[in-house]
């Protein structure tokens, strides 16, 4: 195993830092259903961490626990070295955790630009009065954050649809806008729930490019759920495998690929 | 032409009671125009502006008509209250026979408003007189439930009734009926059953009347002790309960006189000419006939103004004078072919009501019949109250112009 405290360097020379988030013995129940059962794993600074597993394994639920949407029935979440007290999802977001959703959750009534700007909301603090008269802090803040939003838009190559209402966009672009919204928050950890579902190879390639660039250029830590093994194996530094709420594997892509439990439960045919 | 519009309500939740009144009013003027070619040779243009009893629409109608109209007939206490302060500025008389704000009787304060020939306080006073057999002290220790629409109209007689209760030692139990509960008054009638009042006095309107009467039948309240105001004595409301409603009473400032000469003229000039919307059943009812009386009051006002100012096409200010100087005597009623349909009355600068008094009508299972002699309100005790409330109103709406000419 790799050094638990110091971090390590990946094959292609990237630095992976210390543990930023650690899930300790998480259990999550819905009435009688146990969606997650006593799972522990960690996420290191700057890495791409994949979570895989069959449908209904509890992957999304795990992401929901991380982002504070579900409160675990048991277990602890450690973030940046301290135990996270119970908090509302918006407080978690303000701590620097941003995410995308399995079934796109964009604000359909707004333009792309506005959607991306909502990602900046955690950084905007002008009072109601200045906002009303559109002067002073409100105006300055608006412009400053607009610059950042535009940067993200440029980065993800969606300039041309900046003013389009998102409801009219095709699926793939919506996914990209969702990524843009999450990125605009300049998060420490970015959680992606099946960012490439329903895309063809070409589009997946684009998406991979963005994810890698985000990871590289901003050093953002990424946790990602994905069913396309090609993507997972190529992109991620370490992979957690879940099955029926239990953890059945954790390690580098190669380790996971050769884990018999994982092959039986999930991969089926050898890839 | 003289433009005398009517703010009618043939629609909405109160249409049932509104329609026969509107028809009566309208038929009367149609008859006058057909038979006499109008009043003093000038035709009366009696148009309707529909309000649906909605105050908002009423104000709209008022605004629309006030430019050329000589009178506004708001037909709801709510609309009356709304336009009352505006009339001082717009200089147009309000004619609100038997409704509106009781202190309008005080002509010094309310120069432009007329509730001829009787106010709600008149009605309340006469009801009390009737049940106490003309001596209010007989009511001592009795309990009277006051079932009323929870609306300015229903609350109007409260100050008077409260004053009387205090003075004569009877217990007054106000029971409001919300606009949405008009059809389902079981809670109110359960309260009546629990409280066992000696009498129930009702200030009901529209669907509330029928609702109350059916509930009264159901709870087996003694119909003889159930008396309504003059807007609660509508034949159609009682027809719903028919025989079971026998004994129910209502005060009225008007009486249907089916053999009066005016009826024959209306039949001849209006109904037979196909100019009426009324059906025969409603034409024999209390409300239709009251409509005739109301139009007659307006017509008399116009006539008295014409006579005084010696012009045919009088304007609003002249009509105000006319309404202030009405003198409907027994003889005049005979001339009009309306003997007995209303008691004689007379208005003046200071008295805009005329206080004609009225009769108690009783439902005999099929129709309303007279059940009392002519009653008169206790003006001596009403007037000070009127003066007081009118002064309060004027103070609240200062600066309020007074008519200094009256004494």
């Amino acid at each position: 195993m790799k050094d638990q405290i110091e971090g390590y360097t990946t094959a292609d020379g990237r630095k992976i830092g210390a543990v930023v988030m650690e899930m300790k013995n998480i259990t999550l129940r819905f009435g009688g259903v146990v969606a997650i059962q006593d799972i522990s794993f960690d996420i290191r600074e700057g890495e791409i961490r994949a979570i895989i597993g069959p449908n209904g394994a509890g992957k999304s639920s795990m992401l929901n626990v991380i982002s504070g949407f579900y409160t675990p029935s048991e277990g602890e979440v450690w973030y940046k070295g301290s135990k996270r007290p119970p908090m509302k999802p918006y407080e978690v977001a303000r701590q620097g955790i941003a995410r995308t959703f399995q079934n796109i959750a964009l604000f359909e009534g707004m333009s792309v630009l506005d959607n991306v700007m909502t990602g900046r909301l955690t950084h905007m603090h002008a009072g109601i009065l200045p906002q009303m008269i559109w002067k002073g802090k409100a105006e300055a803040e608006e412009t400053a954050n607009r610059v950042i939003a535009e940067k993200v838009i440029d980065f993800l190559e969606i300039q041309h649809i900046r003013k389009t209402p998102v409801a009219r966009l095709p699926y793939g672009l919506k996914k990209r806008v969702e990524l843009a919204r999450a990125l605009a928050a300049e998060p420490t950890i970015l959680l992606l729930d099946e960012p490439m579902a329903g895309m063809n190879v070409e589009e997946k390639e684009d998406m991979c490019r963005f994810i890698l660039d985000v990871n590289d250029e901003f050093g953002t830590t990424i946790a990602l759920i994905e069913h396309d093994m090609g993507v997972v194996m190529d992109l991620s530094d370490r992979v957690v495998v879940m099955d029926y709420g239990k953890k059945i594997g954790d390690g580098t892509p190669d380790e996971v690929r050769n884990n018999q439990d994982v092959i039986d439960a999930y991969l089926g045919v050898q890839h | 032409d003289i433009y005398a519009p009517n703010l009618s309500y043939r629609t909405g939740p109160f249409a049932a009671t509104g329609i026969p009144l509107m028809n009566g009013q309208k038929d009367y003027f149609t008859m006058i125009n057909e038979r006499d070619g109008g009043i003093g040779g000038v035709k009366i243009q009696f148009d309707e502006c529909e309000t649906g009893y909605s105050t908002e629409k009423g104000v709209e109608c008022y605004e629309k008509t006030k430019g050329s109209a000589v009178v506004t007939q708001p037909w709801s206490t709510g609309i009356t209250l709304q336009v009352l302060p505006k009339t001082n500025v717009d200089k147009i008389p309000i004619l609100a026979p038997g409704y509106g704000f009781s202190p309008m009787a005080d002509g010094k304060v309310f120069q432009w408003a007329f509730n001829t020939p009787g106010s709600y306080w008149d009605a309340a006073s006469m009801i009390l007189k009737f049940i106490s057999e003309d001596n209010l002290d007989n009511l001592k220790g009795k309990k009277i439930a006051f079932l009323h629409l929870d609306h300015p109209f229903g609350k109007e007689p409260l100050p008077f009734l409260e004053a009387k209760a205090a003075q004569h030692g009877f217990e007054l139990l106000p029971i409001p009926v919300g606009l949405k509960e008009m059809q389902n008054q079981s809670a109110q009638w359960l309260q009546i059953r629990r409280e066992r009042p000696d009498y129930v006095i009702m200030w009901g309107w529209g669907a509330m009347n029928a609702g109350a009467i059916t509930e009264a039948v159901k709870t087996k309240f003694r119909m003889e002790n159930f008396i309504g105001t003059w807007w609660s004595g509508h034949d159609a409301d009682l027809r719903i309960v028919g025989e079971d409603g026998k004994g129910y009473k209502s005060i009225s400032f008007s009486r249907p006189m089916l053999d009066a000469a005016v009826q024959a003229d209306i039949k001849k000039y209006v109904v037979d000419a196909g100019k009426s919307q009324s059906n025969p059943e409603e034409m024999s009812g209390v409300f239709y006939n009251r409509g005739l009386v109301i139009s007659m009051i307006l017509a008399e006002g116009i006539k008295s103004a014409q006579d005084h100012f010696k012009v045919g096409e009088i304007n609003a200010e002249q009509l105000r004078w006319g309404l202030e100087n009405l003198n409907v005597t027994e003889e005049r009623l005979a001339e009009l072919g309306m003997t007995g349909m209303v008691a004689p009355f007379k208005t003046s600068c200071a008295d805009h009501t005329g206080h004609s008094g009225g009769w108690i009508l009783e439902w005999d299972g099929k129709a309303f019949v007279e059940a009392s002699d002519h009653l008169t309100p206790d003006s001596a005790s009403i007037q000070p109250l009127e003066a007081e409330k009118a002064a309060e109103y004027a103070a609240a709406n200062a600066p309020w112009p007074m008519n200094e000419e009256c004494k």
Partner: protein
Amino acid sequence: MLDTATAAPTTQDTLLDVNNVEVIYNHVILVLKGVSLKVPKGGITALLGGNGAGKTTTLKAISGLLASERGEVTKGSIKYRDASIQHADPAAIVRKGVIQVMEGRHCFSHLTVEENLLTGFYTRKMNKAEMAADLEKVYTYFPRLRERRKSQAGYTSGGEQQMCAIGRAMMAKPETILLDEPSMGLAPQLVEEIFGIVKDLNEKEGVSFLLAEQNTNVALRFAHYGYILESGRVVMDGPAADLRENPDVKEFYLGMSDDGRKSFRDVRSYRRRKRWLS
């Protein structure tokens, strides 16, 4: 690596004939710009293409579901067994034997799985025995559904919902199933399982399929014939085997370069634009 589909069936009667169809949403958004395709009897036909290419729109145009989305077919013709179904309402089209399984597993979330399946019987004449028999058949194809028959569909997993949707369509005893992105969001082995069932249904029950897919890899393995749609136009079509060998398809849809599958890590460095699109 995989078991390729059997060769296309010999009977080549065309069941469904879509000819030069144009679709406009909301009176302004032109989405299909003249799409033509044919679905032969007993075949599995794949409709491939990127996001927003118009695959779903094409299927909805056929099944008559466009109308409820403020879309309409403004040009071209759609025929099923040589009869126009262009203006028929969805129920009539189902009765003719064409049923769509919608993208995103639209199950009736408050109905139980079994009730969901039974709604599929709606267009058929009520016959208790037949209904029970067909239900049994669906359960034999999808044993997992039998286990979950009493649970509310909204709480079942993604794969189960997809099975439920296909099973529901089977209850209508269709001749042709329009299957929209069955693989979306499903784990790899479930994808295999679903496609296996599709193949079984095709071979054993003789059901024809028109299959809209992003997952070109799987789709071309199971289909007999394929159409590639880009921006509302068919840009390429041919037998599945041929498409699989086409270099452009290989690069853009299968993610292969000349020397085998390329890593997603490498795509950053070099990207070629599609040739058939300007």
